[in-house]
């Protein structure tokens, strides 16, 4: 099993690569790569599967996006048909360009979704939780408890349903869910108290401890101001300044996280080793994105407006995208 950090690098690179282009050929290639990865790493009977398979997602989203864009965007030279102007809101010509643009958006979304699905399948929930930065240690514990108790809650629900049935309870109206919900709630509250006792007995801080000091608050505020002003500037067309401010703000917030993390006394038990597989995956992802961004410089952008043309394709850039296949190759 790969270290979760390797997967995160892969995911970030994949997301960046895909979102810099609207070229349908590149997008389709990337999607194929991601889908192959998903297919290879999915083991039968896994409990943490995406609710929708990527294929079905594509089937819903691409036509939907195409349709919506066609309704909203009337630009383009190739008019397929026209809805009479008298119909409110949707009257006007439906152009092929708008359909294609919408479909491209849908394709982009599907690629993003599939990349995330690969991460979901590859990294078990516990490891994802472990990845939560130390500054958010309380949040990580809460997530851990929630994941532990969610199946127990479902079982408890079954028990309560039976217990209410044997005193004559029937499920007819919405109000009849109350005898199922209330014991669940009060039982949960009682159990939370017991759990808190058990945690406190094992050294978890039982009184409110301050890990978030005034200093970190101030740092956060500076960071947020940076982001806000950067955003406003970008909105007002000062993109370069805006992005710089946003980056600065992000780094400041990261500092606040780091400061908070340092004041949490806590060590980690489980360490997944970082081996050659992780290097391969990370290297492959970085090479893929570097190659794609540089070799595909000219051909990345694609605009179906004002008239549909066949997109350009650079073989080198396409090959670079194959770097994302590495996890599928190295998985056991």
């Amino acid at each position: 099993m790969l270290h979760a950090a390797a997967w995160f690098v892969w995911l970030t690179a994949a997301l960046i690569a895909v979102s810099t282009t609207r070229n349908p050929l590149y997008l389709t290639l990337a999607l194929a790569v991601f889908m192959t990865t998903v297919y290879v790493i999915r083991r039968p009977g896994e409990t943490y599967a995406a609710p929708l398979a990527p294929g079905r997602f594509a089937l819903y989203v691409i036509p939907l996006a195409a349709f919506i864009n066609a309704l909203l965007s009337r630009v383009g030279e190739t008019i397929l048909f026209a809805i009479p102007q008298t119909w409110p809101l949707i009257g006007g010509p439906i152009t092929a360009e708008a359909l294609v643009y919408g479909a491209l958006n849908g394709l982009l979304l599907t690629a993003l979704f599939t990349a995330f699905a690969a991460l979901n399948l590859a990294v078990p929930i516990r490891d994802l939780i472990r990845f939560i930065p130390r500054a958010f240690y309380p949040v990580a514990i809460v997530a851990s408890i929630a994941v532990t108790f969610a199946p127990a809650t479902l079982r408890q629900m079954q028990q309560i349903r039976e217990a209410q049935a044997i005193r004559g309870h029937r499920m007819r109206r919405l109000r009849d869910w109350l005898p199922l919900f209330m014991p669940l709630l009060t039982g949960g509250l009682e159990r939370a108290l017991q759990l808190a006792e058990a945690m406190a007995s094992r050294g978890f801080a039982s009184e409110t401890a301050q890990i978030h000091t005034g200093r970190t608050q101030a740092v956060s505020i500076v960071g947020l101001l940076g982001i806000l002003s950067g955003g406003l500037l970008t909105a007002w067309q000062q993109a370069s300044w805006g992005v710089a401010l946003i980056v600065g703000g992000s780094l400041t917030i990261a500092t606040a996280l780091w400061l908070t993390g340092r004041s949490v006394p806590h060590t980690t038990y489980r360490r997944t080793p970082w081996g050659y597989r992780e290097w391969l995956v990370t290297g492959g992802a970085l090479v893929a994105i570097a190659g794609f961004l540089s070799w595909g410089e000219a051909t990345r952008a694609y605009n179906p407006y004002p008239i549909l043309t066949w997109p350009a394709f650079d073989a080198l850039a396409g090959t670079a995208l194959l770097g994302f296949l590495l996890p599928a190759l190295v998985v056991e």
Partner: protein
Amino acid sequence: MLRFLWAVRRLLRVLIYALTTAIGLLAFLYPVIVSGQAASTPLLLAFVVGLSFVALLLEVQGDAVNAKFIALLGILTAMNAALRFAEVAIPGPGGFSPIFFLIIVTGYVYGGRFGFLLGALTMLVSALITGGVGPWLPYQILTAGWVGLSSPLLHPLTRWLRAEGCWTEVALLASFGLGWGLLYGALLNLSSWAFIVGPGAPMPATFRETVRLYGAFYVTTSLVWDLARGLGNVALTLAFGAPTLRALRRFHKRFSFTYRLQGP
């Protein structure tokens, strides 16, 4: 001196809430305000939303390193996430989602922090369990968090109407649920607007035109769903609100005090 420090901390906290709300709103409204966006804008926006959420989370979580708070939050998140799992598995009408009821009510009884964390973590944990992690997640988390964070705003209203403990309180919570049901959908739609509609959509010269366009988009795609969500919240609150409030208040005492050492 201590009071002064405490007041300063409180001011800083409000400032952080305000800034993150502003950033969040900006991110949500960006595609409406600005024309001609680059292809990578949606992802950048999601990143910014995620970042401001991180800052907000850091602030909200600050005082919460307390075993009772965490155990309670964990168990309630488990319950809410289980409800969401049921929602995904057995789709109700349109956007009906049973999770907002608990988020609103616990935020109302146990405070904005608790509500915020319950909302955000319900989304996060249920995404983890059902494998629904995706680029929409930061938006969902932030908005669900806002739902919980804003519940205590009802308190002045309840106090003014002297409605503690009677059905007026439940009615207030129900209408709050209706409002947020619609608002949640509207906000999330804004975020997906950026993903689906690209440049070439005629960005009209006036802001008003854009709003009209967005209104059209909203009505065609999600009004029905959001109505279902809002009305679902109302139904749940009216049916379960009173006993839930009683149960939560009963336990409030056992959960929220600190022991002060007796003098010698």
